[in-house]
């Protein structure tokens, strides 16, 4: 027989005025299994808590009910008190007779009746409570940052400065991301390289950072505090330990006409290359698809078609036979900072998107995108910072910018606003005016969205000081007429049709998530939205966490973000990671699900409904090692205790500790008699 103690609180007058606390205590005392029942003026006060402790000792209680305020208020208080007497804290529960009773009813008799029923229900539940242990998870204090754009760099540096080891995995040969391609940056127009390069170098040299470039995350297993990560180091064809970055190899390479990704196809590079002069690390890689030697090998040539780079390298760093290798890492927390790509207006698009035939599907040479404009405007770009037309190298005197291309366009592209293009278009008009003094910039826009510190002032400056002409209306068509581009538009504010001649047109195309990022999300069991951006756990209160414990977000992988936003997120993420690492063990409530493997039929309905991907497959084998069956298994590190699995399980084989069917039925049965 259970030995349960009931403690009814008056809360001064708060409960006592409406509920006859003495009567509650008396009636409860007569319940089977109740060994002790008293009422007191302030249960949460020190003397009140002492009453509870004393009763546990003296009456040898094995369960405690405090009938008082909301458990959200004092459940922790009483569980602590109970634990101090050596009783398992999860054997104590509260019955809410204040917020849910005395405060909302006037009729003393009815309120008292209700209080008695509520207490009785909790008593019945507690009879079925079992001791539970707070879950403690060990933490590997090493973070992984995936993607080294400005967001990844900032997050890694902040974490590393906190004294924790960080592994940074970047898929490209160099870190820096899109920011390294930008010319000058809004809202202050500082030079992108000037503020970014020092941070890149700092990351490279930081004693706590292990930087792995030209690499991708291949597999992730485990859970918060205890991830095992497999990283594929792609073959560079250059031995990074031997190379000193002298650049002799690239100079020797005969294949100089490969379109440069970094220069968005406006410039060229060699087959062995570093993406840009300030690249970190300054170690080249061979683009095997473009290299004569590898093409020769693919064709089955016996002799090496070229080996000029090896001949040029005095350090014997070139290694044509290098293979992809794998690196395993134990990781406690993961920061995703994979950034974005730009929407292309071309004909070939992923499912659900279409290109812009009315703008020529990207075939008109002097219709470029915003990133190409950045490269043209960049002092280190293919034109040395001169803004000229790709077709004939002439300086455009009439330049037209189209905003919201691909964005806010459910019919062809995506419905969201890319958030940064209004700003960078304003920036582009300024950069243009600063370089082409006699030129005219015209912007076709729908709305100007410049909500940030100094942003509105910035766009106004483009209009008021730098003479950019803003026309409200989406352009219908672009077409070539000899050397000029015809812009067919409508000024919705003046009500006038427009057919304008332009020498160059810049499309502010939408920000989209990186290609293939869904695959990474699945590897991480993190969720993503319908566009492929990573989902934050809560848009307001948990913006840098994912729903998967231990996985965090920074930068444009979560939604379109500019640099200030990306950096703020990155630092916030670092704070989260460091906070997590400040403890040796993670503690969490033991409210997690458990599977009874003898009952489980292996239907995996639970797996499908679990919001956290906490359910895994467990193979049951006999002693000879033959597979008997596959059942569900809950990873307690991942389970958050919602109980959806239990309600879904057809055979009731999975149970949520603290809220088992037995406990709930007992509570229901006691309520309605």
């Amino acid at each position, binding site marked *: 027989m259970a030995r349960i103690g009931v403690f009814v609180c008056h809360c001064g007058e708060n409960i006592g005025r409406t509920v006859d606390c003495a009567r509650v205590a008396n009636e409860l005392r007569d319940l089977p299994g109740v060994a002790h029942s008293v009422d007191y003026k302030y249960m949460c006060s020190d003397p009140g808590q002492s009453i509870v402790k004393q009763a546990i000792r003296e009456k040898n209680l094995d369960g405690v009910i405090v009938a008082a305020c909301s458990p959200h208020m004092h459940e922790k208080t009483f569980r602590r008190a109970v634990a101090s007497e050596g009783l398992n804290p999860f054997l104590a529960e509260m019955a809410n007779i204040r917020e849910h009773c005395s405060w909302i009813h006037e009729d003393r008799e009815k309120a008292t009746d209700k209080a008695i029923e509520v207490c009785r229900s909790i008593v019945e539940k507690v009879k079925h409570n079992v001791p539970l242990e707070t879950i403690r998870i060990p933490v590997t204090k090493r973070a992984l940052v995936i993607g080294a754009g400005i967001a990844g760099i900032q997050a890694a540096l902040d974490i590393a400065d906190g004294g924790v080891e960080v592994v940074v995995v970047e898929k490209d040969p160099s870190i820096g991301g899109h920011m390294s391609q930008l010319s000058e940056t809004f809202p202050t127009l500082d030079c992108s390289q000037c503020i970014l390069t020092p941070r890149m170098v700092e990351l490279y040299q930081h004693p706590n950072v292990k930087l792995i470039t030209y690499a991708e995350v291949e597999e992730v297993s485990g859970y918060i505090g205890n991830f095992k990560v497999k990283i594929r180091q792609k073959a560079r064809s250059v031995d990074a330990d031997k190379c000193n970055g002298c650049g002799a190899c690239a100079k020797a390479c005969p294949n100089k006409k490969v379109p440069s990704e970094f220069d968005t196809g406006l410039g060229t590079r060699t087959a062995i290359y570093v993406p840009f002069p300030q690249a970190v690390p300054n170690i080249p890689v061979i683009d095997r698809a473009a290299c004569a030697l590898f093409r020769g090998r693919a064709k089955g040539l016996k002799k090496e078609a070229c080996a000029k780079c090896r001949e040029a390298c005095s350090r014997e760093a070139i290694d044509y036979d290098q293979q992809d290798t794998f690196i395993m890492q134990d990781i406690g927390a993961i920061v995703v900072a994979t950034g974005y790509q730009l929407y292309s207006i071309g*004909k070939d698009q992923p499912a659900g998107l279409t290109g*812009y*035939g009315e703008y020529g599907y990207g075939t008109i040479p002097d219709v470029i995108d915003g990133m190409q404009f950045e490269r043209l405007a960049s002092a280190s770009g293919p034109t040395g910072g001169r803004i000229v037309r790709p077709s004939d190298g002439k300086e455009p005197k009439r330049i037209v910018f189209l905003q919201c291309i691909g964005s806010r366009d459910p019919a062809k592209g995506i419905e969201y606003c890319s958030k940064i293009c209004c700003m960078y278009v304003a920036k582009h008009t300024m950069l243009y005016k600063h370089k082409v003094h006699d030129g005219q910039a015209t912007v076709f826009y729908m709305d100007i969205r410049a909500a940030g510190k100094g942003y509105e002032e910035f766009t106004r400056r483009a209009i008021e000081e730098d003479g950019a002409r803003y026309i409200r209306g989406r352009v219908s068509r672009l077409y070539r*007429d000899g050397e000029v581009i015809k812009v067919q538009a409508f000024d919705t504010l003046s009500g006038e049709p427009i057919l304008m001649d332009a020498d160059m047109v810049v499309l502010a195309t939408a920000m989209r998530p990186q290609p293939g990022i869904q695959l990474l999300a699945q590897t991480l069991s993190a969720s993503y939205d319908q566009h492929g951006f990573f989902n934050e756990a809560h848009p307001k209160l948990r913006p840098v966490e994912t729903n998967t414990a231990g996985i965090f977000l920074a930068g444009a992988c979560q939604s379109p973000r500019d640099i200030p936003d990306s950096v703020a997120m990155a630092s916030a993420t670092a704070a989260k990671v460091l906070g997590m690492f400040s403890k040796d063990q993670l503690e969490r409530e033991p409210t997690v699900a458990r599977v009874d493997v003898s009952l489980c039929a292996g239907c995996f309905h639970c797996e499908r409904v679990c919001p956290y991907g906490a359910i895994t497959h467990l193979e049951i084998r006999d002693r000879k090692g033959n597979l008997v069956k596959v059942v569900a298994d809950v990873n307690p590190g991942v389970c958050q205790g919602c109980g959806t699995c239990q309600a879904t399980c057809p055979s009731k084989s999975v149970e949520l500790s603290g809220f088992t069917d037995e406990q709930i039925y007992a509570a229901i049965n006691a309520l309605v008699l």
Partner: protein
Amino acid sequence: MRIGYYPGCSLHATSREFDESLRATAVALDVELAEIDDWSCCGATSGHATSHLLSVALPARNLALAEEQGMQEVLAPCAACYNRLASASHSLREDAGLEIKIKEILARPFANTVRVRNVMELYRSLIPQITEKSAGRLKGMKVACYYGCLLVRPPGVLAFDDAEQPTSMDEICRATGATSVDWNLKVECCGGAFSLSRTASVIRLGRAILEDARKAGAEALIVACPMCHSNLDFRQSAMTQSGETPMPVLFLSELVGMGLGLSARDMGMKRHFVNTGPIEKRATETAAQVAAEAAAKAAKAAETAAKATAQAGTAPAGKGVA
């Protein structure tokens, strides 16, 4: 190949040459056009400008007839008819309520199974035959393919080609050996619907189209819509400034016919308002040139083959002169 045929009102009257040339090419390409017996008007612009229901019911009657007469596909050469028939069929598939209403009005069995095709789709499927039979006869002739609006829009309904940068007509023209020029106003509207009621608009729009085609170096404008044709052909004098050479406006079927070597007379081309004489002459010239080139090539091949035989001394006679 046999395909249902819905000529529509224009092809029976103002655009008879479209009908005639189409039938002539069909014969040449072994296609049997089975005219829907007792077809009625699709309602055209007037139908849908005044009653959505009527604009679906009139085409539906014809689709039902085609079905009764065992046709799976119906060719509607007139762009307006094509657009109306295809749109009606699409609306009926999308809107179950409308389908019930229409079935009630038609009072005849109707399952909406017939697929509506335009001339471009027909010819596109025959490109290998056209290429073969025309043997590059129109090589060097520069034409501007004009699609207009009715054949490509709305994109969701008439999805046989890209709505902004269509290419089917260009591909067909190229099959005859002609060059299709790159120009800008391929899918701009010529104002067809106002042909009769608002001439000034039509002239403004048509002029821009002709100018752009001319600028691109086209010798003729190729169309696949009777309304485009009557606008750009009949009204061209008003669209052209003095000193500009007139631009013949040919139905796609006429161009294909010329490629196949059919006579302009058989295709009713004499009915055009802009004189087609010059372009017919060009066709004859290019054909002659192509033939001469082919002959020269054959002769050369024969010569080398003969040389080879002479050298080898053993090859049987006639080999290599295929």
